């Protein structure tokens, strides 16, 4: 028994040459010239198959050259040419400027069913060559892609990329009489069908899916005799050809990371909506997204903004800023050149409310950094505070703490309506208290002003600047005033005197991601 016998058998039951080669385990590069490859395998495909066995099928074959029991005509040149033509004619394909491309193929279950029938038949006929456990063929999808990809790449002048960072061309095929042909399956494993009928919701109301078929139906997981009783082995010659149902074209999901500074005390990080009403016109996320989305040909509403934590509406975020990522689905471009990133940074800078730096595309895997930064990183804050008595050296000494300590914070009242009541222990690594140098000159001046006007109540000698380094998740405002004793110890309890917070800035978020890139000068030069 030789490969030739297998070929003749397959040819006899109505397999096309490409499918025969698949069952002969043809290597990947063989499919670009099937005839030549068959010759290499020692098969003379032009000699008519052994008469005793293949005669009835061969006759049927002649009626329709393109038809095949396995691929249902998918590999016929008329079908493949039609697919390519439709891809190239698609309006969508021209919208995408990405430089790489990838195809995906979705085939009806019937193709899997027919493969199973051929598998069962081959096992019986050629037990030395085929087994119940190893797949008998080279996957039909892989072969379709192998044939189509080079042609698509050449025509579109793009390169093939398997990591989904380019255009995805999704080909959906259907078979007109599929449900009819699947019916006998119900007899092979009635319990399976019964389960799916009993709990339709669990299975999304689908009687069969490709995944379920492949899980439950293969020669090692079913009674082959029962199968052969209900389903034709080898498969009967098909009446209809596989049809291209639709083509969808998607761009890749691109991730753009960067760091933002928030420079306004009246700007929320994300749209702030209370009782269905917008509280503020703008937000950090919207300002960033609207300046980035267009480049990628995407609607701003479809872009997802996430960041390593957030600050309150009235808190600024300065220094190197806070890391953020934009998830841009269906992007028309995969690459963000530095010059384009620099322009985006420059435009955002002009708002004077938000500033962004280090804009760059990142890989999906890198997104974990941002969530880690939210939980276990140190944060540096600067709090502008006011006391009820003039600041003394003794007070400042109490407010310079280099010894780490822990504070117990009960969920602040301001978030209590939407967060569980809990006591959180947070580490305070360092506190540095300072006073403004200019205070005393200003004070004298203000004193003079005060003499003339009672309305001016500025007395800066009650002002303290606190630089605080804490564990992420510490509520700083509450740490300062103690929130009626609900945060303990607090700065207020440490100094044993009244203190309140007037303004707060985030100074540093201890997360060195994304890497620094100098787009800004790149664009202005």
């Amino acid at each position, binding site marked *: 028994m030789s490969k030739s016998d297998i070929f003749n058998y397959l040819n006899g039951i109505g397999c096309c040459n490409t499918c025969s080669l698949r069952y002969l385990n043809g290597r990947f590069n063989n499919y670009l010239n099937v005839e030549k490859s068959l010759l290499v395998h020692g098969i003379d495909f032009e000699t008519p198959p052994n008469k005793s066995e293949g005669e009835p099928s061969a006759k049927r074959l002649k009626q329709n050259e393109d038809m095949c029991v396995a691929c249902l005509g998918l590999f016929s040149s008329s079908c493949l040419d039609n697919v390519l033509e439709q891809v190239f004619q698609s309006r969508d394909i021209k919208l995408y400027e990405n430089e790489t491309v990838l195809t995906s193929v979705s085939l009806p279950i019937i193709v899997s069913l027919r493969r199973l029938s051929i598998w069962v038949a081959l096992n019986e006929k050629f037990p030395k060559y085929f087994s119940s456990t190893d797949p008998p063929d080279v996957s039909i999808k892989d072969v379709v892609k192998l044939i189509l990809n080079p042609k698509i790449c050449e025509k579109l002048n793009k390169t093939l990329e398997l990591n989904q960072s380019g255009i995805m061309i999704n080909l959906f095929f259907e078979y007109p009489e599929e449900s009819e042909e699947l019916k006998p399956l119900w007899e092979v494993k009635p319990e399976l069908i019964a389960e799916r009928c009993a709990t339709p919701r669990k299975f999304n109301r689908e009687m069969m899916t490709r995944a379920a078929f492949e899980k439950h139906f293969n020669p090692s997981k079913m009674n082959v005799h029962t199968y052969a009783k209900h389903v034709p082995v080898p498969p009967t010659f098909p009446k209809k050809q596989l049809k291209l149902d639709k083509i969808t074209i998607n761009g890749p999901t691109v991730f753009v990371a960067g760091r933002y*500074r928030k*420079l306004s*005390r009246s700007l929320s990080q994300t749209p702030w909506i209370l009782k269905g009403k917008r509280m503020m016109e703008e937000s950090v996320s919207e300002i960033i997204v609207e300046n980035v989305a267009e480049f990628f040909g995407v609607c701003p509403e479809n872009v997802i903004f996430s960041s390593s934590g957030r600050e309150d509406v009235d808190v*600024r975020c*300065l*220094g190197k800023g806070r890391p953020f990522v934009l998830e841009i689905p269906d992007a028309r471009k995969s690459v963000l050149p530095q010059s384009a990133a620099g322009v985006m940074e420059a435009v955002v*800078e*002009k708002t*004077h409310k938000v*500033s962004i730096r280090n804009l760059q595309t990142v890989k999906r895997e890198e997104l974990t950094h941002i969530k880690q930064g939210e939980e276990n990183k140190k944060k540096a804050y*600067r709090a*502008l505070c*006011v006391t009820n008595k003039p*600041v*003394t*050296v003794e007070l*400042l*000494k109490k407010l*310079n703490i280099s010894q780490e300590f822990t504070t117990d914070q*009960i969920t602040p*009242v*301001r*978030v*209590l*309506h*939407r*967060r*569980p*009541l809990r006591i959180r222990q947070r580490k305070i690594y360092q506190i540095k*208290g*300072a*006073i*403004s*140098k*200019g205070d005393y000159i200003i004070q004298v001046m203000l004193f003079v002003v005060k003499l003339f006007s009672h309305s001016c*109540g*500025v*007395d*800066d000698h*009650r*002002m303290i*600047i606190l630089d605080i380094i804490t564990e992420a998740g510490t509520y700083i405002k509450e740490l300062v*005033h103690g*929130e*009626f*004793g609900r945060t303990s110890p607090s700065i207020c309890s440490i100094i044993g005197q009244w203190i*309140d917070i*007037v*303004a707060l*800035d985030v100074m540093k978020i201890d997360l060195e991601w994304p890497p620094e890139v100098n787009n800004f000068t790149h664009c202005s030069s």
Partner: protein
Amino acid sequence: MTELSDFYFEEEKELVDGLKCPSILCDFDANCPSVVDRYYTRYYYRKSDSTQENEDHLILIHSNRVCLVGLAPSHIAFAKGIQSVDFNIGNIDRRQNHCSGKSKKGAMNLQPSSAVAIVTCTDGTQYKIVACVTGKLIEVNERLMKNPGLLAKEGDGYVAICLPKIENADVIKQSLISEELYKSQGAAN
């Protein structure tokens, strides 16, 4: 000797669009409103069965509807002198309250007249501190047991935190006496 000049603040330079970013010092306001004034609205509650004595309660309602219930400064207990605060109101100890999750499951449900604590004065008289609002009991201020003097401090002296249902928030405010009305009634004395 350490001097004030040792603590002078030095600010790093921060640029935005080529311009210097305003210093945090510019935001200073020595007369910045207190925490209570910034985030809360004062409401008052008067017991309907109250005799001649003033038993007014103060309710601080946060902008997110969370209520901090305590005594109004005019409450008779302050004049008499406060000895102790107890959350064991007889049949139940309010400290046993537990709530879990965002929705505060398992919290004790309170009616306006439900007692949340009992205050004992130096002369031995006792007054019930009531919830004033309908809602869930979130926490009681156990620090008052050690330091009953806190009761007189607005904010720090809260006795209990209640969370009304969102749909009841407006009705609750209407059932209480607003600060304006309360002051006009001269009840603050």
